[in-house]
């Protein structure tokens, strides 16, 4: 069977091809929106035209069978128009108000979860994990599933002081925005990598490998035509493994995850913030990582009980102080919490005024 003729450098299709007429007609002329329920909203244009959106949770990994099923629903209620959000939710775009309720009803009947709009937990940004990544040190989808089974009511119904953005990264490369999430899980190694000298010599460029280390722990080893690692300097980031696979950082029995908190992206009220370390380590406990899930649930509960309306996790912590964060959450403060990496001088306390 012959294939169609390939084309190069055509780029993606222009988005205009996929916009429903109500969007084409009101592009750039939206006036306001209203959240109708945790999973539905209406956007109203200057012209008075309305667009209804239904937001549906997705595990991000979707089988073509599921995509087709969602497409069928889009055809039934949305003239075939749908989109995905930057947090991997599915959105059905309804132009005819009369179709909103039947659409929601059918989605629910088919077992889809609707929600994520407003001061809630939206879908979780996460990475490939063991499903498809060579450098994964935990499974991202597994943790997300276990975590959201526990927290799903914050997607479908319950409110929080503000949005809580969750993320899971299966290694410190952090595909996704873990470093600026309200609460995030990041997988970490804790042992110095082993070096397969013979293959390092064959497969790797020594200067690149030496240069890959953020703490200058790697040096050339002319005797072995490989490299050696200064164990005292190594912080187990695994960047050497990325550039030189025979340097193996994986230790299934010692690897696990850390929890970071307080990051945000928007400039609302306060500037964007990095997430900071809350809990340095949990062992990987597949399939459901119960201790990780409990720890996250605890942080959310304490946040919900203590933050003011509209405060994000990081804003709440900055208001009460990190010493209060550790006290309120009951999280143990350890040596790992005190920064000794690149930006350490920005994080140590320079005042005699603090709380107990």
């Amino acid at each position, binding site marked *: 069977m012959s*294939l*169609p*003729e*390939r084309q190069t*450098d055509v*780029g*993606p*299709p*222009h*988005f205009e*091809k996929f916009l429903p007429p109500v969007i084409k007609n009101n592009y*750039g002329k*939206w006036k306001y*929106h209203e959240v109708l329920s945790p999973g539905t909203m209406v956007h109203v244009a200057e012209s008075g035209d309305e667009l209804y959106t239904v937001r549906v949770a997705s*595990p991000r*990994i979707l089988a*073509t069978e599921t*995509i087709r099923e969602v*497409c069928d629903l889009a055809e039934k209620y949305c003239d*075939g*128009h749908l*989109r*995905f*959000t*930057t947090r991997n939710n*599915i959105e059905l775009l309804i132009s005819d108000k009369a179709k909103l309720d039947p659409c929601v009803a059918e989605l629910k009947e088919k077992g889809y*979860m609707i929600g994520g709009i407003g001061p809630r937990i939206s879908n979780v940004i996460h990475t490939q994990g*063991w*499903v*498809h*990544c060579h450098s*994964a040190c935990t*499974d991202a989808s*597994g943790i*997300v*599933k276990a975590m959201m*089974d526990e927290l*799903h009511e914050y997607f479908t119904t319950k409110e929080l002081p503000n949005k809580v953005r969750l993320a899971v990264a299966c290694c*410190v*490369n*952090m*595909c996704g*925005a*873990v470093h*600026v999430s309200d609460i995030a899980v990041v997988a970490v190694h804790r042992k110095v990598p082993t070096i397969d000298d013979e293959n390092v010599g064959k497969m790797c460029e020594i200067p690149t490998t030496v240069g890959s280390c*953020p703490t200058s722990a790697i040096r050339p080893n002319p005797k072995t035509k490989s490299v050696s690692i200064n164990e005292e300097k190594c912080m187990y980031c695994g960047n050497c493994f990325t*550039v030189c696979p025979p340097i193996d950082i994986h230790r*299934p029995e010692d690897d696990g995850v850390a929890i970071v908190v307080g990051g945000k*992206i*928007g*400039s*609302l*009220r306060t500037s*964007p913030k*990095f997430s900071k370390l809350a809990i340095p380590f949990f062992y990987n406990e597949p*399939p459901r990582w119960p201790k990780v899930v409990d720890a996250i649930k605890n942080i959310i509960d304490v946040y919900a009980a203590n933050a003011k309306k*509209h405060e994000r996790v990081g804003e709440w912590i900055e208001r009460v102080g990190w010493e209060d964060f550790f006290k309120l959450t009951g999280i143990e403060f350890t040596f790992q919490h005190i920064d000794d*990496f*690149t*930006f350490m001088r920005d994080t140590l306390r320079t005042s005699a005024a603090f709380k107990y």
Partner: protein
Amino acid sequence: MAKYDTPMLDELEKGPWPSFVTEIKKAAKTNKMSDDELGQLEKSFQTKRGYWKHGGIVGVLGYGSGVIGRYSSLPEEFPGVAHFHTYRINQPSGFFYTSAALKEICDIWDKYGSGLTNMHGSTGDLVLLGTTTEALEPLFAEYSSRGWDLGGSGSAMRTPSCCVGMARCEWANIDAMGICNHMTQHFQDELHRPAFPYKFKIKVSGCACDCVAAIARADLSIIGTWKGNIRIDQAEVKKYADGGMDIQSEIIDMCPTDCMSYDGGEIKINDVQCSRCMHCIAKMTKALRQGEEKGATVLVGSKAPIVVGSLISWVLVPFIKCDDEDFEKLTELTENIIEWWDDNAKPRERLGELIEVKGMRPLLEAVGVDPQPQQVREPRKDPFFFWADSDFEK
């Protein structure tokens, strides 16, 4: 099919949140690759480690980006995933589709691949998860002939991405989707043929809410903003108050610049003091709207922790007009930034890291932007600074 027992993964089919395991099983019903993916994943859950080798050299003829080689380290045990490459399709800006387009993508994917997707990958691509080396050229012929090109990977321009922008958001100060699409088309060569020192990411958000996280994960972050006074509809302010909003504590007291007041009837804003953070507008969208002179702030340098720590982007150009006729100017600015980086960076050095080594001045001079207080949180504290010959002429 279903030749594997998956007791660990079966646990993740329980509970209310949609299950990725169910998705893999759906694909595995008819697809041998997905079935072996399921088997290998169960093994990972049992042994707490992954079984994927480093990416290999695969791709489509003429391109160096868009396909990521992936091979199982247990090909004899799981032959269906011996090759399990990723095929990144460049998504339409704003992630809009029609069912017809998506179904066509699915039909082709079922024919050549695992039937599994990511909607979408972290950078923004429509990710097709798992296919063989032999299938790559046919897939490219099928998709590219229908107008679906590959996305970026490796040391290249990565697929630009954006928020929903003017398509469905009253807060969009710029045409995020229009800019994203324009940039994507303009940088096709840089996207497909990895000639850069390292990756280069562009993200566009319509306002400071930054729904695409441009400020945290793009070498070039374009974020919509405005100049001029916030437009107030006092009748709508009253409706918010009548509806139970505590305007004093929720809005006025939370304004970071203390530029608002409320007398129980009307809101007043001292716009000169406003930093345009979006808090009040986001909470009172019917009553408050941005000023009418729209544009973008261009920031540079953000990235994840590797190598020496994560960075949030720094302001380069405080305000640039972004109407349709300004797209070329924005593109030119981007080209100049990239040229400076490409000329100066070591291999695997991101733009933010290069700025840390060289300082902001060389970049500002390279792109012709004057120093402005908006670019810093505060001036330097120590009395060490460079003087260039040109400074003596002033």
